[in-house]
C-alpha cells in the first residue's frame, strides 16, 4: 500500500501532504499539521468534538479520510478569528460562560457557526413543526440543531444563550 499526495486547504493556507490513505481528516489536522484545536473525543461520529467546517458545512472530521478532501476549503477553530479578534461566536461563548473544561468547545463553536448559516439558508430541523416553512430559531431549535455536539461538563444552557446572542446580532 502506498501513500497518496494530497493538498489540503486549511484556513486559507494550502498544505501539500504525503499521507497513508487511512489517515482521517481529524488525524491529518492534529498529527500532520499540528493543529490541535480540533479535538478527538470518540472517533466514531458520536460526540462532535472533531467538528470542522468544509466548504461551508459542518462535518465530523473523524469519519472522513483526508485524501477525500483535496481542493476543499477546510475551516477549523484556529481559522475563525479575524485580524486577531475573536470570532463573534467565540466572544459569545466567553461572555456567556458556554464552557467548563473546554474540550468540546472548538467543536461546539464550529458547529454553532455553521448552524447559523444553515438556519439563514432556511433549513428545517427535527424541531420544526412544519418542515415546509422557514423556522424561527427558538431555544428548542438551537438545542436540536446542536445535538451532534455532546458536552461532558453539561454547559448546554449557556451554549444555547451564546448562540442565541449571536443569532440576534447583539450582546446581552
Amino acid at each position, binding site marked *: *500500500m502506498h501513500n497518496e499526495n494530497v493538498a489540503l486547504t486549511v484556513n486559507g493556507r494550502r498544505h501539500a501532504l504525503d499521507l497513508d490513505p487511512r489517515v482521517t481528516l481529524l488525524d491529518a489536522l492534529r498529527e500532520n499539521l499540528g493543529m490541535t484545536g480540533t479535538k478527538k473525543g470518540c472517533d466514531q*461520529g458520536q460526540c*462532535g468534538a472533531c467538528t470542522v467546517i468544509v466548504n461551508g458545512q459542518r462535518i465530523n472530521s473523524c469519519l472522513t*479520510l483526508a485524501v477525500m478532501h483535496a481542493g476543499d476549503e477546510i475551516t477549523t477553530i484556529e481559522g475563525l478569528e479575524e485580524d486577531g479578534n475573536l470570532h463573534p461566536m467565540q466572544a459569545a461563548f466567553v461572555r456567556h460562560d458556554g464552557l467548563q473544561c473546554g474540550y468540546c468547545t472548538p467543536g461546539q463553536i464550529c458547529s454553532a457557526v455553521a448552524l447559523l448559516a444553515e438556519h439563514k439558508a432556511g433549513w*428545517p430541523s427535527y424541531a420544526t413543526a412544519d418542515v*415546509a416553512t422557514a423556522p424561527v430559531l427558538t431555544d428548542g431549535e438551537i438545542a*436540536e440543531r446542536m445535538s*451532534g455536539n455532546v458536552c461532558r461538563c453539561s454547559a448546554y444552557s449557556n451554549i444555547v444563550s451564546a448562540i442565541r446572542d449571536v443569532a440576534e446580532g447583539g450582546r446581552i
Partner: protein
Amino acid sequence: MKPFRYERAGSLASACASATEPTAKFIAGGTNLLDLMKLQIETPTHLVDIGPLPLAEIEESAEGGLRIGARVTNSALAADMRVRRRYPVLSQAILAGASAQLRNKATTGGNLLQRTRCSYFYDTTKPCNKRMPGSGCAALGGLNRMNAVIGVSSDCIAAHGSDMAVAMAALDARVETVAADGVTRTIPIDALYRPPGNTPHIETVLAPGELIQSVVLPPPPPGQQLYRKVRDRASFAFALVSVAVVVTREDDRVRAARVAFGGISYKPWRSAEAEAALIGATVTRASFDAAGRAALRDARGYGYNDFKIPLARRTLRAALADATGVI
C-alpha cells in the same frame, strides 16, 4: 484500519469495474464504512470514492415525482423545498436521524446501505453470524433491546437503522442501479433488502460492483404524511421504533393509508396488513389499534426487546391520530 488502495472514481463504468473485486467497496460519505473499518469489521483492500461522480442532483421525473442522485446528502435532501412541500414525511424522517454534522456527509445511497447497529455486530469479541458467518448470534440470548421483532430468523435478529428508508418505503421509492457491464435495473425499495434467513451477512440483492445511481420517488400520494420516532433520548439516537404514515381521511373513515415501521425489522417494514385493516375503518383510536395489532401479528420478542411490539402498536396509533386529527 487495515491498509487499502484508494481510488477516486473517474467514471461510472470505471467505478463499477473497480468495485467488482470481492474485497473492494464504494465509499460515499464514509460515515458508516469508516466507523466499521476502524473496528476492522469491514476490511476492504480497495476503496472506490464515488465523490467525483455526478450523482448529486435532485431532478423532477417525467412521471411527476423526483429522482434523487445517490450522492445527494441527507441534509440537502431534507432541505430541498420540493421534498419539504410534496414529501414532508421524507424530510421529517431524515431530520430525525443522526446529527447535523453526519447528515451533511451521509448520502442517499450510503444511508440505504448502512449496516445494523446491533451491539454484538460491533463487539468483535462476540459471536455474530453477520460479521463472521457460522459463529452464532450473541444477540439471541443477549441484551437485544435494540433488535428486531419481525421478519428475522434464528440466525440473526438485527434491525436496520435507517430513518430515511422508512419514509421512502411508505412513498414506494425505487432504487436505480448500474452494474460493471453497464446493465441498469430498478428495484422497489422493499425488494432491495434480503431477509436474514441463514445468510445474514448477505444484506441486499445488489451484486458486487453494482452502484446505486439514484432513488426515484413516484408522484406524492394524496393524504397527510407524518413520521414519528421513539428513542432513548430526545435527539441523536437510533429509533427504538418509528413509523411513517400517509393517510387520507374522508368524513369519519380512512380512505387510503400507507404504513411503514422502522426499528423492528431487517428492512423498513411496510405493513400491508395494517393498510388493509385501515381502509374503510372509522377514524378512531380503536381502529388504529386494530391496524397495529394486524401489523404485528407475526412479531415476537426475544426478551429485552419484547416492549417493541406494544410500542410499535402505540406509535402507529399516535401517528395516525396526529395525521387524521383525532384527539
